[in-house]
Protein backbone atom coordinates (compact mmCIF):
# COMPACT_ATOMS: atom_id res chain seq x y z
CA UNK A 1 0.00 0.00 0.00
CA UNK A 2 1.42 3.34 -1.00
CA UNK A 3 2.35 5.84 1.65
CA UNK A 4 0.56 8.73 -0.02
CA UNK A 5 -2.75 6.89 0.29
CA UNK A 6 -2.10 6.47 3.99
CA UNK A 7 -1.25 10.16 4.30
CA UNK A 8 -4.37 11.29 2.50
CA UNK A 9 -6.48 8.89 4.59
CA UNK A 10 -4.97 10.35 7.73
CA UNK A 11 -5.80 13.86 6.49
CA UNK A 12 -9.41 12.86 6.04
CA UNK A 13 -9.44 11.23 9.47
CA UNK A 14 -7.92 14.27 11.21
CA UNK A 15 -10.27 16.73 9.55
CA UNK A 16 -13.32 14.54 10.21
CA UNK A 17 -12.29 14.22 13.85
CA UNK A 18 -11.99 17.99 14.21
CA UNK A 19 -15.27 18.61 12.44
CA UNK A 20 -16.96 15.90 14.48
CA UNK A 21 -15.78 17.52 17.68
CA UNK A 22 -17.09 20.92 16.58
CA UNK A 23 -20.48 19.64 15.47
CA UNK A 24 -21.18 17.16 18.23
CA UNK A 25 -20.29 19.55 21.07
CA UNK A 26 -23.11 21.79 19.84
CA UNK A 27 -25.75 19.09 20.22
CA UNK A 28 -27.79 19.87 23.36
CA UNK A 29 -28.23 17.12 26.00
CA UNK A 30 -31.91 17.20 25.08
CA UNK A 31 -31.05 15.44 21.83
CA UNK A 32 -28.32 13.08 22.99
CA UNK A 33 -30.39 9.93 22.52
CA UNK A 34 -31.41 10.88 18.95
CA UNK A 35 -27.76 11.79 18.36
CA UNK A 36 -26.63 8.30 19.36
CA UNK A 37 -29.26 6.67 17.18
CA UNK A 38 -28.37 8.95 14.28
CA UNK A 39 -24.62 8.46 14.43
CA UNK A 40 -25.27 4.74 14.72
CA UNK A 41 -27.34 4.89 11.53
CA UNK A 42 -24.68 6.93 9.77
CA UNK A 43 -21.91 4.55 10.79
CA UNK A 44 -24.03 1.88 9.14
CA UNK A 45 -22.20 3.27 6.11
CA UNK A 46 -19.96 0.24 6.58
CA UNK A 47 -22.76 -1.14 4.43
CA UNK A 48 -20.84 0.11 1.39
CA UNK A 49 -17.93 -2.13 2.33
CA UNK A 50 -20.27 -5.07 2.93
CA UNK A 51 -21.99 -4.58 -0.42
CA UNK A 52 -18.74 -5.04 -2.32
CA UNK A 53 -17.83 -8.10 -0.25
CA UNK A 54 -21.27 -9.62 -0.81
CA UNK A 55 -21.33 -8.99 -4.55
CA UNK A 56 -17.75 -9.65 -5.54
CA UNK A 57 -17.93 -13.49 -5.51
CA UNK A 58 -14.37 -13.97 -4.30
CA UNK A 59 -15.34 -17.18 -2.53
CA UNK A 60 -18.48 -18.72 -1.11
CA UNK A 61 -17.38 -18.04 2.44
CA UNK A 62 -16.61 -14.41 1.73
CA UNK A 63 -19.99 -14.00 0.04
CA UNK A 64 -21.72 -15.49 3.08
CA UNK A 65 -19.82 -13.15 5.41
CA UNK A 66 -20.65 -10.28 3.09
CA UNK A 67 -24.36 -11.03 3.05
CA UNK A 68 -24.52 -11.29 6.84
CA UNK A 69 -22.64 -7.98 7.01
CA UNK A 70 -25.09 -6.41 4.55
CA UNK A 71 -28.01 -7.58 6.69
CA UNK A 72 -26.45 -6.31 9.91
CA UNK A 73 -25.49 -2.95 8.43
CA UNK A 74 -28.87 -2.48 6.76
CA UNK A 75 -30.62 -3.17 10.06
CA UNK A 76 -28.59 -0.31 11.49
CA UNK A 77 -29.14 2.08 8.64
CA UNK A 78 -32.87 1.51 8.23
CA UNK A 79 -33.55 0.97 11.92
CA UNK A 80 -31.36 3.87 12.99
CA UNK A 81 -32.91 6.45 10.71
CA UNK A 82 -36.44 5.18 11.42
CA UNK A 83 -36.10 5.37 15.18
CA UNK A 84 -34.35 8.76 15.03
CA UNK A 85 -37.27 10.06 13.01
CA UNK A 86 -39.71 8.54 15.53
CA UNK A 87 -37.95 10.32 18.39
CA UNK A 88 -37.47 13.66 16.65
CA UNK A 89 -41.11 13.72 15.58
CA UNK A 90 -42.06 13.71 19.25
CA UNK A 91 -39.78 16.63 19.98
CA UNK A 92 -40.90 18.64 17.02
CA UNK A 93 -44.64 18.20 17.50
CA UNK A 94 -44.58 20.36 20.56
CA UNK A 95 -42.75 23.50 19.68
CA UNK A 96 -43.29 25.89 22.58
CA UNK A 97 -45.83 27.93 20.57
CA UNK A 98 -47.94 24.86 19.77
CA UNK A 99 -47.96 23.30 23.17
CA UNK A 100 -50.75 25.31 24.84
CA UNK A 101 -53.08 24.45 21.98
CA UNK A 102 -51.96 20.87 22.19
CA UNK A 103 -52.79 20.56 25.86
CA UNK A 104 -56.10 22.34 25.39
CA UNK A 105 -57.09 19.74 22.82
CA UNK A 106 -56.22 17.04 25.30
CA UNK A 107 -58.32 18.59 28.02
CA UNK A 108 -61.30 18.90 25.75
CA UNK A 109 -61.00 15.23 24.98
CA UNK A 110 -61.06 14.42 28.64
CA UNK A 111 -64.07 16.56 29.43
CA UNK A 112 -66.14 15.10 26.65
Amino acid at each position, binding site marked *: MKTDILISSLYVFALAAFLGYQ*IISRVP*PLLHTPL*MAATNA*ISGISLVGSLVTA*GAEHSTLSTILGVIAVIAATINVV*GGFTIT*ERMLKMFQDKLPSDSPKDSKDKKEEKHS
Partner: protein
Amino acid sequence: MESKYLIEIAYIIASTLFIFGLKGLSHPKSARNGMNLAAMGMLVAVVGTLLHHEIVSYTWIIVGLLVGSLIGSVMALKVSMNALPQRQAISLAFGALAATLVGVAEYMRGGAELGSFKMTALGFEVLFGSITIAGSLVAFAKLQELIRGTPLTFKGQNIFNIALFTFTIGIFISLIFSPGNEIMFYVMIGLAFLFGLLLVLPIGAADMPVVMSLMNSYAGLASAATGFALNNNVLIIAGTLDGFSGFILSILMCKAMNRSMTNVLFGAFGGASEEQQAIEGVQREVGIDDVAVQLAYARQVVIIPGYGLATAQAQHTVRELAEALEHRGVIVKYAIHPVAGRMPGHMNVLLAEANVPYSSLYELEQINPEMGATDVSIVIGANDVVNPDARDNPKSPIAGMPIIEVDKSKQVIVLKRGKGRGFSGIENPLFFKPNTGMLYGDAKASLAKLVQAVQQA
Protein backbone atom coordinates in the same frame (compact mmCIF):
# COMPACT_ATOMS: atom_id res chain seq x y z
CA MET B 1 -12.82 3.38 -14.96
CA GLU B 2 -15.56 5.98 -15.15
CA SER B 3 -17.70 4.26 -12.54
CA LYS B 4 -14.85 4.80 -10.10
CA TYR B 5 -15.22 8.56 -10.36
CA LEU B 6 -18.99 8.38 -10.15
CA ILE B 7 -18.64 6.44 -6.92
CA GLU B 8 -16.20 8.96 -5.51
CA ILE B 9 -18.58 11.81 -6.36
CA ALA B 10 -21.43 9.92 -4.68
CA TYR B 11 -19.26 9.51 -1.57
CA ILE B 12 -18.37 13.20 -1.46
CA ILE B 13 -22.05 14.10 -1.66
CA ALA B 14 -22.87 11.54 1.02
CA SER B 15 -20.15 12.83 3.38
CA THR B 16 -21.36 16.41 2.99
CA LEU B 17 -24.95 15.40 3.66
CA PHE B 18 -23.94 13.46 6.78
CA ILE B 19 -22.18 16.50 8.17
CA PHE B 20 -25.14 18.76 7.44
CA GLY B 21 -27.39 16.13 8.98
CA LEU B 22 -25.50 16.04 12.27
CA LYS B 23 -25.28 19.82 12.28
CA GLY B 24 -29.08 19.87 12.21
CA LEU B 25 -29.12 18.08 15.56
CA SER B 26 -27.96 21.27 17.28
CA HIS B 27 -31.62 22.21 17.64
CA PRO B 28 -34.85 20.20 17.77
CA LYS B 29 -36.34 22.44 15.08
CA SER B 30 -33.70 21.66 12.49
CA ALA B 31 -33.10 18.06 13.56
CA ARG B 32 -35.65 16.33 11.36
CA ASN B 33 -34.57 18.11 8.19
CA GLY B 34 -31.01 17.28 9.06
CA MET B 35 -31.77 13.60 9.43
CA ASN B 36 -33.59 13.57 6.09
CA LEU B 37 -30.45 14.96 4.49
CA ALA B 38 -28.34 12.29 6.19
CA ALA B 39 -30.68 9.53 5.05
CA MET B 40 -30.48 10.90 1.52
CA GLY B 41 -26.70 10.85 1.81
CA MET B 42 -26.88 7.19 2.78
CA LEU B 43 -29.02 6.41 -0.25
CA VAL B 44 -26.59 8.20 -2.56
CA ALA B 45 -23.66 6.29 -1.06
CA VAL B 46 -25.39 2.92 -1.42
CA VAL B 47 -26.55 3.52 -4.99
CA GLY B 48 -23.07 4.77 -5.89
CA THR B 49 -21.48 1.67 -4.40
CA LEU B 50 -23.66 -0.61 -6.49
CA LEU B 51 -21.74 0.67 -9.54
CA HIS B 52 -18.51 -0.78 -8.08
CA HIS B 53 -16.65 -2.77 -10.73
CA GLU B 54 -15.94 -5.67 -8.38
CA ILE B 55 -19.62 -6.37 -7.83
CA VAL B 56 -20.62 -9.08 -10.27
CA SER B 57 -23.79 -10.45 -8.73
CA TYR B 58 -26.67 -8.53 -7.22
CA THR B 59 -28.83 -11.42 -6.06
CA TRP B 60 -27.41 -11.73 -2.57
CA ILE B 61 -27.04 -8.01 -2.17
CA ILE B 62 -30.74 -7.54 -2.81
CA VAL B 63 -31.62 -10.37 -0.43
CA GLY B 64 -29.41 -8.85 2.25
CA LEU B 65 -30.80 -5.36 1.79
CA LEU B 66 -34.39 -6.62 1.93
CA VAL B 67 -33.90 -8.81 4.99
CA GLY B 68 -31.97 -6.06 6.78
CA SER B 69 -34.54 -3.38 5.96
CA LEU B 70 -37.36 -5.59 7.16
CA ILE B 71 -35.72 -6.48 10.48
CA GLY B 72 -34.47 -2.93 10.95
CA SER B 73 -37.78 -1.21 10.39
CA VAL B 74 -39.78 -3.72 12.43
CA MET B 75 -37.34 -3.30 15.32
CA ALA B 76 -37.40 0.48 15.07
CA LEU B 77 -41.17 0.74 14.86
CA LYS B 78 -42.01 -1.84 17.50
CA VAL B 79 -39.56 -0.93 20.24
CA SER B 80 -41.01 1.09 23.09
CA MET B 81 -39.30 4.32 24.05
CA ASN B 82 -38.63 2.82 27.48
CA ALA B 83 -36.48 0.15 25.83
CA LEU B 84 -34.37 2.56 23.77
CA PRO B 85 -31.11 1.75 25.57
CA GLN B 86 -31.49 -1.95 24.76
CA ARG B 87 -32.21 -1.22 21.13
CA GLN B 88 -29.20 1.05 20.93
CA ALA B 89 -26.97 -1.62 22.49
CA ILE B 90 -28.08 -4.33 20.10
CA SER B 91 -27.72 -2.09 17.07
CA LEU B 92 -24.19 -1.16 18.12
CA ALA B 93 -23.48 -4.88 18.09
CA PHE B 94 -24.91 -5.17 14.56
CA GLY B 95 -22.82 -2.28 13.29
CA ALA B 96 -19.67 -3.74 14.78
CA LEU B 97 -20.55 -7.17 13.39
CA ALA B 98 -20.77 -5.75 9.88
CA ALA B 99 -17.38 -4.05 10.21
CA THR B 100 -15.76 -7.17 11.68
CA LEU B 101 -17.11 -9.48 8.97
CA VAL B 102 -15.91 -7.18 6.21
CA GLY B 103 -12.53 -7.17 7.93
CA VAL B 104 -12.42 -10.96 8.07
CA ALA B 105 -13.45 -11.27 4.42
CA GLU B 106 -10.76 -8.79 3.40
CA TYR B 107 -8.20 -10.71 5.41
CA MET B 108 -9.21 -14.01 3.78
CA ARG B 109 -8.75 -12.37 0.40
CA GLY B 110 -5.41 -10.77 1.10
CA GLY B 111 -3.81 -13.20 3.53
CA ALA B 112 -0.03 -13.22 3.50
CA GLU B 113 0.05 -10.66 0.67
CA LEU B 114 -1.41 -7.90 2.85
CA GLY B 115 0.85 -4.91 3.26
CA SER B 116 1.62 -3.76 6.77
CA PHE B 117 -0.56 -0.66 6.35
CA LYS B 118 -3.62 -2.62 5.29
CA MET B 119 -2.97 -5.23 7.97
CA THR B 120 -2.83 -2.50 10.61
CA ALA B 121 -6.12 -1.05 9.43
CA LEU B 122 -7.77 -4.49 9.31
CA GLY B 123 -6.40 -5.26 12.75
CA PHE B 124 -7.93 -2.15 14.26
CA GLU B 125 -11.15 -2.91 12.44
CA VAL B 126 -11.61 -6.39 13.83
CA LEU B 127 -10.26 -5.44 17.28
CA PHE B 128 -12.64 -2.52 17.78
CA GLY B 129 -15.34 -4.55 16.07
CA SER B 130 -15.17 -7.63 18.24
CA ILE B 131 -14.73 -5.66 21.49
CA THR B 132 -17.85 -3.72 20.56
CA ILE B 133 -19.86 -6.80 19.63
CA ALA B 134 -19.08 -8.48 22.96
CA GLY B 135 -19.43 -5.32 25.05
CA SER B 136 -22.70 -4.28 23.46
CA LEU B 137 -24.17 -7.74 23.83
CA VAL B 138 -23.34 -7.74 27.54
CA ALA B 139 -24.80 -4.25 27.86
CA PHE B 140 -27.91 -5.46 26.06
CA ALA B 141 -28.21 -8.48 28.35
CA LYS B 142 -27.87 -6.28 31.42
CA LEU B 143 -30.38 -3.71 30.20
CA GLN B 144 -32.86 -6.36 29.14
CA GLU B 145 -32.27 -7.98 32.53
CA LEU B 146 -31.25 -11.28 30.96
CA ILE B 147 -28.31 -11.20 33.34
CA ARG B 148 -28.01 -9.41 36.65
CA GLY B 149 -27.33 -5.70 36.38
CA THR B 150 -24.98 -5.74 39.32
CA PRO B 151 -21.25 -5.82 38.60
CA LEU B 152 -19.77 -9.28 38.10
CA THR B 153 -16.30 -9.39 39.54
CA PHE B 154 -13.61 -11.88 40.43
CA LYS B 155 -10.31 -11.56 42.18
CA GLY B 156 -7.44 -10.21 40.12
CA GLN B 157 -9.86 -9.15 37.42
CA ASN B 158 -8.10 -5.94 36.48
CA ILE B 159 -4.71 -7.62 36.26
CA PHE B 160 -6.20 -10.39 34.16
CA ASN B 161 -7.86 -7.87 31.85
CA ILE B 162 -4.70 -5.87 31.42
CA ALA B 163 -2.71 -9.02 30.69
CA LEU B 164 -5.32 -10.13 28.19
CA PHE B 165 -5.28 -6.74 26.52
CA THR B 166 -1.48 -6.63 26.31
CA PHE B 167 -1.36 -10.15 24.90
CA THR B 168 -3.98 -9.29 22.26
CA ILE B 169 -2.05 -6.19 21.22
CA GLY B 170 1.09 -8.34 21.07
CA ILE B 171 -0.56 -10.69 18.60
CA PHE B 172 -1.75 -7.68 16.62
CA ILE B 173 1.79 -6.34 16.34
CA SER B 174 3.14 -9.73 15.31
CA LEU B 175 0.46 -9.91 12.61
CA ILE B 176 1.54 -6.57 11.18
CA PHE B 177 4.97 -8.10 10.56
CA SER B 178 3.73 -11.48 9.37
CA PRO B 179 0.15 -11.08 8.13
CA GLY B 180 0.10 -14.63 6.78
CA ASN B 181 -0.30 -16.19 10.22
CA GLU B 182 -3.97 -17.01 9.86
CA ILE B 183 -4.50 -18.79 13.16
CA MET B 184 -3.14 -15.81 15.05
CA PHE B 185 -5.62 -13.53 13.28
CA TYR B 186 -8.58 -15.57 14.51
CA VAL B 187 -7.08 -16.01 17.97
CA MET B 188 -6.77 -12.24 18.13
CA ILE B 189 -10.46 -11.79 17.27
CA GLY B 190 -11.42 -14.35 19.90
CA LEU B 191 -9.32 -12.68 22.58
CA ALA B 192 -10.67 -9.25 21.72
CA PHE B 193 -14.18 -10.65 22.04
CA LEU B 194 -13.32 -12.09 25.45
CA PHE B 195 -11.83 -8.76 26.45
CA GLY B 196 -15.05 -7.01 25.44
CA LEU B 197 -17.07 -9.38 27.61
CA LEU B 198 -14.79 -8.93 30.61
CA LEU B 199 -14.72 -5.18 30.14
CA VAL B 200 -18.46 -4.68 30.48
CA LEU B 201 -19.45 -7.53 32.83
CA PRO B 202 -18.02 -5.78 35.92
CA ILE B 203 -19.79 -2.51 35.12
CA GLY B 204 -23.02 -1.87 36.97
CA ALA B 205 -26.23 -1.04 35.14
CA ALA B 206 -26.21 2.47 36.61
CA ASP B 207 -23.02 3.18 34.68
CA MET B 208 -24.56 2.11 31.40
CA PRO B 209 -24.67 5.66 29.96
CA VAL B 210 -20.87 5.64 29.88
CA VAL B 211 -20.67 2.12 28.48
CA MET B 212 -23.19 2.91 25.77
CA SER B 213 -21.30 6.04 24.73
CA LEU B 214 -18.00 4.20 24.76
CA MET B 215 -19.31 1.28 22.68
CA ASN B 216 -20.77 3.88 20.33
CA SER B 217 -17.31 5.32 19.99
CA TYR B 218 -15.64 1.94 19.33
CA ALA B 219 -18.25 0.99 16.74
CA GLY B 220 -17.52 4.23 14.92
CA LEU B 221 -13.78 3.67 15.07
CA ALA B 222 -14.27 0.17 13.67
CA SER B 223 -16.07 1.73 10.70
CA ALA B 224 -13.32 4.31 10.31
CA ALA B 225 -10.70 1.56 10.33
CA THR B 226 -12.70 -0.22 7.62
CA GLY B 227 -12.37 2.98 5.63
CA PHE B 228 -8.59 2.90 6.03
CA ALA B 229 -8.49 -0.76 4.98
CA LEU B 230 -10.68 -0.26 1.93
CA ASN B 231 -9.23 3.16 1.13
CA ASN B 232 -12.75 4.55 1.30
CA ASN B 233 -13.12 8.14 2.47
CA VAL B 234 -16.84 8.17 3.21
CA LEU B 235 -16.29 5.29 5.63
CA ILE B 236 -13.48 7.16 7.34
CA ILE B 237 -15.56 10.32 7.65
CA ALA B 238 -18.78 8.67 8.86
CA GLY B 239 -16.91 6.34 11.19
CA THR B 240 -14.87 9.15 12.67
CA LEU B 241 -17.96 11.30 13.23
CA ASP B 242 -19.59 8.38 15.04
CA GLY B 243 -16.44 7.60 16.98
CA PHE B 244 -16.04 11.17 18.15
CA SER B 245 -19.67 11.57 19.01
CA GLY B 246 -19.44 8.54 21.29
CA PHE B 247 -16.17 9.77 22.74
CA ILE B 248 -17.54 13.22 23.56
CA LEU B 249 -20.66 11.70 25.12
CA SER B 250 -18.62 9.36 27.30
CA ILE B 251 -16.57 12.28 28.57
CA LEU B 252 -19.73 14.25 29.31
CA MET B 253 -21.20 11.28 31.17
CA CYS B 254 -18.03 10.81 33.21
CA LYS B 255 -18.02 14.50 34.08
CA ALA B 256 -21.63 14.26 35.17
CA MET B 257 -20.57 11.57 37.65
CA ASN B 258 -17.27 13.23 38.58
CA ARG B 259 -15.42 10.06 37.75
CA SER B 260 -12.60 9.28 35.40
CA MET B 261 -13.02 6.90 32.52
CA THR B 262 -10.58 4.48 34.16
CA ASN B 263 -12.67 4.49 37.30
CA VAL B 264 -15.85 3.68 35.39
CA LEU B 265 -14.18 0.95 33.34
CA PHE B 266 -12.14 -0.71 36.05
CA GLY B 267 -13.78 0.43 39.25
CA ALA B 268 -16.62 -2.14 39.30
CA PHE B 269 -18.71 0.58 40.82
CA GLY B 270 -21.69 -0.14 43.01
CA GLY B 271 -20.49 -3.60 43.83
CA ALA B 272 -20.91 -5.42 47.08
CA SER B 273 -21.50 -2.59 49.49
CA GLU B 274 -18.45 -1.98 51.62
CA GLU B 275 -18.38 -0.63 55.13
CA GLN B 276 -21.10 1.88 54.69
CA GLN B 277 -22.36 3.79 57.60
CA ALA B 278 -26.01 3.12 58.14
CA ILE B 279 -27.76 6.43 58.44
CA GLU B 280 -29.42 7.27 61.72
CA GLY B 281 -32.99 8.37 61.53
CA VAL B 282 -36.27 7.37 60.09
CA GLN B 283 -37.79 7.64 56.69
CA ARG B 284 -41.07 9.50 56.92
CA GLU B 285 -43.81 7.89 54.91
CA VAL B 286 -46.50 10.16 53.55
CA GLY B 287 -50.00 9.58 52.22
CA ILE B 288 -51.39 10.44 48.80
CA ASP B 289 -53.82 13.06 50.10
CA ASP B 290 -51.18 15.00 52.04
CA VAL B 291 -48.92 15.09 49.00
CA ALA B 292 -51.79 16.11 46.75
CA VAL B 293 -52.60 19.09 48.98
CA GLN B 294 -48.96 20.17 49.11
CA LEU B 295 -48.74 19.98 45.34
CA ALA B 296 -52.05 21.67 44.67
CA TYR B 297 -51.16 24.72 46.72
CA ALA B 298 -47.55 25.00 45.62
CA ARG B 299 -46.28 27.80 43.47
CA GLN B 300 -43.53 25.85 41.76
CA VAL B 301 -43.07 22.09 41.50
CA VAL B 302 -39.96 20.44 40.04
CA ILE B 303 -40.10 16.83 38.85
CA ILE B 304 -36.87 14.82 38.81
CA PRO B 305 -37.21 11.65 36.74
CA GLY B 306 -34.80 8.72 36.93
CA TYR B 307 -34.58 5.27 35.45
CA GLY B 308 -37.46 4.20 37.72
CA LEU B 309 -39.73 6.35 35.57
CA ALA B 310 -38.79 4.28 32.54
CA THR B 311 -39.18 0.92 34.27
CA ALA B 312 -42.58 1.93 35.65
CA GLN B 313 -43.49 3.37 32.21
CA ALA B 314 -44.93 6.29 34.11
CA GLN B 315 -44.05 9.14 31.75
CA HIS B 316 -47.64 9.64 30.58
CA THR B 317 -48.99 9.67 34.11
CA VAL B 318 -46.37 12.24 35.10
CA ARG B 319 -47.58 14.41 32.28
CA GLU B 320 -51.16 14.06 33.52
CA LEU B 321 -50.11 15.11 37.00
CA ALA B 322 -48.23 18.11 35.61
CA GLU B 323 -51.27 19.01 33.54
CA ALA B 324 -53.57 18.82 36.54
CA LEU B 325 -51.19 21.05 38.49
CA GLU B 326 -50.71 23.54 35.67
CA HIS B 327 -54.48 23.73 35.41
CA ARG B 328 -54.43 25.07 38.97
CA GLY B 329 -51.76 27.61 38.13
CA VAL B 330 -48.79 25.72 39.54
CA ILE B 331 -45.54 26.12 37.61
CA VAL B 332 -44.19 22.66 36.76
CA LYS B 333 -40.61 22.10 35.60
CA TYR B 334 -38.64 18.96 34.89
CA ALA B 335 -35.02 18.65 35.97
CA ILE B 336 -32.96 16.19 33.93
CA HIS B 337 -29.61 14.97 35.22
CA PRO B 338 -27.21 13.99 32.42
CA VAL B 339 -26.85 10.44 33.73
CA ALA B 340 -30.50 9.87 34.62
CA GLY B 341 -31.61 6.72 32.85
CA ARG B 342 -29.49 4.19 31.04
CA MET B 343 -28.32 6.19 28.05
CA PRO B 344 -27.57 9.86 27.46
CA GLY B 345 -30.75 11.88 26.94
CA HIS B 346 -33.11 8.97 27.61
CA MET B 347 -35.35 10.94 30.00
CA ASN B 348 -35.82 13.74 27.48
CA VAL B 349 -37.11 11.30 24.89
CA LEU B 350 -39.48 9.63 27.35
CA LEU B 351 -40.96 12.95 28.42
CA ALA B 352 -41.19 14.12 24.82
CA GLU B 353 -43.09 10.92 24.10
CA ALA B 354 -45.56 11.89 26.81
CA ASN B 355 -46.09 15.27 25.10
CA VAL B 356 -44.08 17.29 27.58
CA PRO B 357 -42.90 20.39 25.70
CA TYR B 358 -39.13 20.54 25.69
CA SER B 359 -39.25 24.13 26.92
CA SER B 360 -40.13 22.79 30.38
CA LEU B 361 -37.17 20.38 30.48
CA TYR B 362 -34.30 21.89 32.45
CA GLU B 363 -30.67 20.87 32.69
CA LEU B 364 -28.81 20.51 35.95
CA GLU B 365 -27.10 23.92 35.78
CA GLN B 366 -30.32 25.68 34.87
CA ILE B 367 -32.51 24.23 37.57
CA ASN B 368 -30.21 24.21 40.61
CA PRO B 369 -30.35 28.00 41.21
CA GLU B 370 -34.14 27.68 41.26
CA MET B 371 -34.34 24.84 43.76
CA GLY B 372 -34.44 27.23 46.74
CA ALA B 373 -37.57 28.85 45.33
CA THR B 374 -39.24 25.51 44.70
CA ASP B 375 -42.06 24.43 46.99
CA VAL B 376 -42.15 20.74 46.20
CA SER B 377 -39.68 18.47 44.36
CA ILE B 378 -40.96 15.12 43.18
CA VAL B 379 -38.22 12.54 42.74
CA ILE B 380 -39.43 9.66 40.59
CA GLY B 381 -37.25 6.58 40.55
CA ALA B 382 -34.03 8.56 40.83
CA ASN B 383 -31.52 8.10 43.61
CA ASP B 384 -27.84 8.94 43.18
CA VAL B 385 -28.52 12.05 41.11
CA VAL B 386 -30.26 13.65 44.09
CA ASN B 387 -28.01 12.26 46.83
CA PRO B 388 -26.81 15.21 48.94
CA ASP B 389 -23.88 13.06 50.13
CA ALA B 390 -22.25 13.65 46.77
CA ARG B 391 -21.99 17.31 47.72
CA ASP B 392 -21.54 17.11 51.50
CA ASN B 393 -19.62 13.95 52.29
CA PRO B 394 -16.13 13.72 50.78
CA LYS B 395 -15.96 10.04 51.80
CA SER B 396 -19.02 9.07 49.81
CA PRO B 397 -18.39 6.78 46.81
CA ILE B 398 -20.08 9.39 44.65
CA ALA B 399 -18.39 12.44 46.25
CA GLY B 400 -18.12 15.38 43.90
CA MET B 401 -20.77 14.17 41.50
CA PRO B 402 -22.95 17.13 40.48
CA ILE B 403 -26.47 16.60 41.82
CA ILE B 404 -29.85 18.17 41.46
CA GLU B 405 -30.17 19.91 44.81
CA VAL B 406 -33.69 18.83 45.70
CA ASP B 407 -32.87 19.07 49.40
CA LYS B 408 -32.91 22.86 49.00
CA SER B 409 -36.57 22.89 48.04
CA LYS B 410 -39.13 23.29 50.80
CA GLN B 411 -40.59 19.82 50.50
CA VAL B 412 -39.31 16.70 48.79
CA ILE B 413 -41.50 13.78 47.77
CA VAL B 414 -39.66 10.61 46.79
CA LEU B 415 -41.49 7.96 44.78
CA LYS B 416 -39.73 4.69 45.32
CA ARG B 417 -40.56 1.05 44.81
CA GLY B 418 -39.42 -0.13 48.22
CA LYS B 419 -37.29 0.77 51.20
CA GLY B 420 -34.13 -0.80 49.83
CA ARG B 421 -31.01 1.12 48.97
CA GLY B 422 -31.72 0.98 45.30
CA PHE B 423 -29.44 0.20 42.48
CA SER B 424 -26.08 1.59 43.41
CA GLY B 425 -26.31 0.31 46.96
CA ILE B 426 -25.40 3.72 48.34
CA GLU B 427 -27.36 5.10 51.26
CA ASN B 428 -29.14 8.32 50.47
CA PRO B 429 -29.45 10.73 53.43
CA LEU B 430 -32.04 12.67 51.45
CA PHE B 431 -34.58 10.00 52.37
CA PHE B 432 -34.02 10.66 56.07
CA LYS B 433 -34.37 14.45 56.02
CA PRO B 434 -37.28 15.94 57.94
CA ASN B 435 -38.64 17.70 54.86
CA THR B 436 -38.60 14.53 52.78
CA GLY B 437 -41.69 12.39 52.42
CA MET B 438 -41.49 8.88 51.02
CA LEU B 439 -44.22 7.51 48.80
CA TYR B 440 -43.60 3.79 48.38
CA GLY B 441 -45.05 1.64 45.66
CA ASP B 442 -45.24 1.47 41.90
CA ALA B 443 -44.55 4.97 40.56
CA LYS B 444 -47.24 4.77 37.92
CA ALA B 445 -49.94 3.72 40.39
CA SER B 446 -48.92 6.37 42.93
CA LEU B 447 -48.89 9.07 40.27
CA ALA B 448 -52.33 8.04 39.00
CA LYS B 449 -53.71 8.34 42.53
CA LEU B 450 -52.02 11.72 42.89
CA VAL B 451 -53.63 12.96 39.69
CA GLN B 452 -57.08 12.09 41.04
CA ALA B 453 -56.38 13.58 44.44
CA VAL B 454 -55.04 16.82 42.95
CA GLN B 455 -58.07 17.17 40.71
CA GLN B 456 -60.30 16.87 43.78
CA ALA B 457 -58.21 19.08 46.05
